């Protein structure tokens, strides 16, 4: 029993809140958290928080009919409500940190696919998912429910590269400085506005072009999210397996970045037979450090998949744009990554490993977001077993993937972190226990 702690849960992950509260042996804080009919969040905290140490659990995941941005605003409102309610300290517990990973270019063929309202995802009878599938890039003339056939993509991407070429060759110096008239420069379009607002119709998105001579860029929201949490009144942030550890530096308040690594390690040691002969694989160069840490900890071999940005030569060893560095023939492979979003990287990596002679492929991911078509893509992939943590709700994913999905419980780690932070004990032991 711990005194003076209040654990307040958002709507994003009630199951985690409950099990953290169970471990800490205290009831979750009573609150009302709904929406007014206008769409504004309504929050009322019914238990006293005066002088208390408040922990607000809200994960960065929108699914099951809820929206990510709603959850984030709810979190800020709850923090602010506790702060104005004279809480002694407010800690935001974000198992999955929202906006922790934002790609720089949005519409590459391998880029993050865009949000479609889930209209056609339920009929899981579509057979055209293979593990070669690339997130569909709906464009003009491409039906939105086209599935994941590769056929559409090269056409569209070549169009983009042509557009980019056309833009690149226009020197900004030669421009007169005023708006290029329609029809002069890339003039296959006659609308005056280049802003798209349509949640549903994405054709605008693919017709979007930057002004000639200007390289379009995507806003990185990481710092903003950090600043917003601090401005709402968070005194401390606890999160897990940040995609970029640098995000910690965006905050002026302490950030505890917990690791899912010990859990994954324990799983390997307990459930993978002859794990000493297995190979740990990082599906991209960015995750190499994460994967080597596990490989070193277990004393087993390591290999890396290298994403070739521009395919040089089509050889047999080369799978589209991915290259394997290391040997996996007749071995059990364990792919390690921090985030599974659309599942594109990891399923393609799995395919490559199979091709290179891997016997069994495990994929271990801390945050299993499974957005877009990820479930179907994973189903069709060469991955034999996928292991995630419940940093985001996994019930639906578990239902869809059945025995192929293994969910590790992180509530004990968070409960222990909350207990230690509350008592002012060191939490570094959580970083490296075995």
């Amino acid at each position, binding site marked *: 029993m711990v005194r003076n702690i209040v654990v307040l849960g958002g709507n994003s992950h009630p199951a985690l809140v409950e099990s953290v509260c169970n471990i800490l042996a205290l009831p979750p804080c009573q609150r009302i958290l709904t929406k007014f009919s206008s769409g504004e969040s309504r929050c009322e905290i019914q238990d006293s928080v005066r002088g208390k140490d408040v922990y607000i659990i809200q994960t960065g995941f*929108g699914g099951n009919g809820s929206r990510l*941005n709603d959850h984030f605003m709810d979190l800020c409102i709850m923090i602010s409500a506790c702060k104005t309610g004279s809480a002694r300290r407010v800690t935001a517990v974000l198992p999955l940190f929202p906006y922790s990973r934002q790609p720089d270019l*949005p519409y590459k063929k391998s880029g993050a696919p865009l949000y479609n309202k889930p209209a056609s995802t339920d009929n899981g009878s579509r057979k055209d998912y293979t593990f070669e599938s690339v997130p569909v890039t709906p464009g003009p003339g491409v039906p939105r429910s086209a599935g994941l056939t590769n056929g559409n993509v090269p056409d569209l991407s070549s169009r983009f590269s042509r557009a980019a070429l056309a833009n690149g060759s226009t020197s900004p110096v030669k421009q007169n400085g005023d708006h290029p008239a329609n029809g002069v420069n890339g003039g296959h379009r006659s609308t005056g506005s280049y802003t*798209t607002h349509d949640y549903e119709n994405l054709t605008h998105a693919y017709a979007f072009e930057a002004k000639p001579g200007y390289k379009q860029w995507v806003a990185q*929201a990481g710092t903003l999210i950090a600043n917003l949490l601090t401005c709402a009144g968070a005194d401390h942030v606890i999160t897990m397996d940040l995609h970029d550890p640098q995000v910690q530096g965006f905050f002026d308040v302490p950030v505890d970045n917990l690791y899912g690594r010990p859990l994954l390690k324990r799983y390997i040691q307990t459930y993978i037979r002859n794990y000493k002969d297995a190979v740990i694989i990082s599906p991209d160069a960015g995750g190499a450090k994460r994967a080597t840490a596990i490989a070193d900890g277990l004393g087993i071999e390591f290999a890396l998949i290298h994403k070739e940005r521009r395919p040089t030569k089509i050889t047999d060893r080369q799978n589209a744009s991915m290259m394997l560095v290391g040997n996996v023939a007749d071995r059990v492979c364990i792919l390690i990554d921090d985030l599974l979003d659309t599942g594109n990287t990891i399923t393609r990596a799995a395919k490559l490993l199979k091709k290179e002679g891997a016997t069994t492929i495990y994929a271990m991911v801390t945050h299993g977001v499974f957005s*877009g078509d990820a479930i179907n893509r994973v189903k069709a992939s060469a991955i034999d077993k996928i292991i995630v943590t419940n940093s985001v709700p996994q019930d639906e994913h578990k239902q869809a993937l059945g025995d192929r999905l293994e969910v590790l419980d992180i509530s004990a780690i968070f409960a222990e972190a909350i207990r230690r932070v509350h008592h002012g004990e060191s939490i570094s032991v959580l970083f490296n226990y075995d």
Partner: protein
Amino acid sequence: MSAEMANEIKLISGRSHPDLCEKIAKRLGIQVARTISLNYSNQETSFTVGESVRDEDVFIVQSTATGDVNEGLMELLIMISACRTASARRITAVIPNFPYARQDKKDKSRAPISARLVANMLQTAGANHIVTVDLHASQIQGFFSVPVDNLYAEPSFLRYIRENFNPEDCVIVSPDAGGAKRATSIADHLNTAFALIHKERPRPNVVGRMVLVGNVVDKVAILVDDMADTCGTLVKAAAVLKENGAKAVLALVTHGILSGNAIETLNGSVLEALVVTNTVPLGDKVERCPKLRVIDISPTIAEAIRRTHNGESVSYLFTHAPV
């Protein structure tokens, strides 16, 4: 003019109300900047900038669509922060319908003052200036430490009444005590009578008993308010006015949020017309509700943007509506 002054207005539109932004752009004779906002499949909002905003005077127009308030707000914050990192000289958030304006006080223990949170968030993101229309409580301006221009729809309403009715036949009615000031101001300008409805509100979005104070017999009763949400209040007030002998009842409301069953409620009511401004995107509501009329507020906003950019006074707009 020095080279320093050569910066231009950059008008950036969010996804919530492109129509209003388009009208403002037209009015200002400029193009909406090339930007695009999207949601990724993991629902994170992404904002792409397609032209330089370096050292420009940036105006970001973002209303909050009914039901999508948080989505619109996050998008706005990301847009502001993007422009800030892109070295914009000044960033003005044009928020015709300020979100969370009704959660402006701690009316219960541990109730959030969300309006202040929104104010802080906007400043944290990097807004240097706020332009809004008919704040629910003008004290919200005090939540900001940057300038806030609170424009009024009142001049547009006055013109509407003068053009459509004989002011002598009208009574201006406030549907609640909080709006009395707004209603009396209109009544004074038109030199007409004024009445007030007192109501009890047991729970949010639920309307209690109503009592009329004043005389509306054989008059056109014009209800004046700052926002129409579920329209429960307005419709009940209209019924009370009708019972008290009003010839006709219509309502002038700045923000037509019209959430929930508002349209059905309106269609079945004794209200002759609900006149709103286009601060909130109305979507297909105009088609669904024949009683709904829309006043275009974009000239006022456009003029405020022009004056702000040129460093002129905006107070003219508090009493006059540009045609």
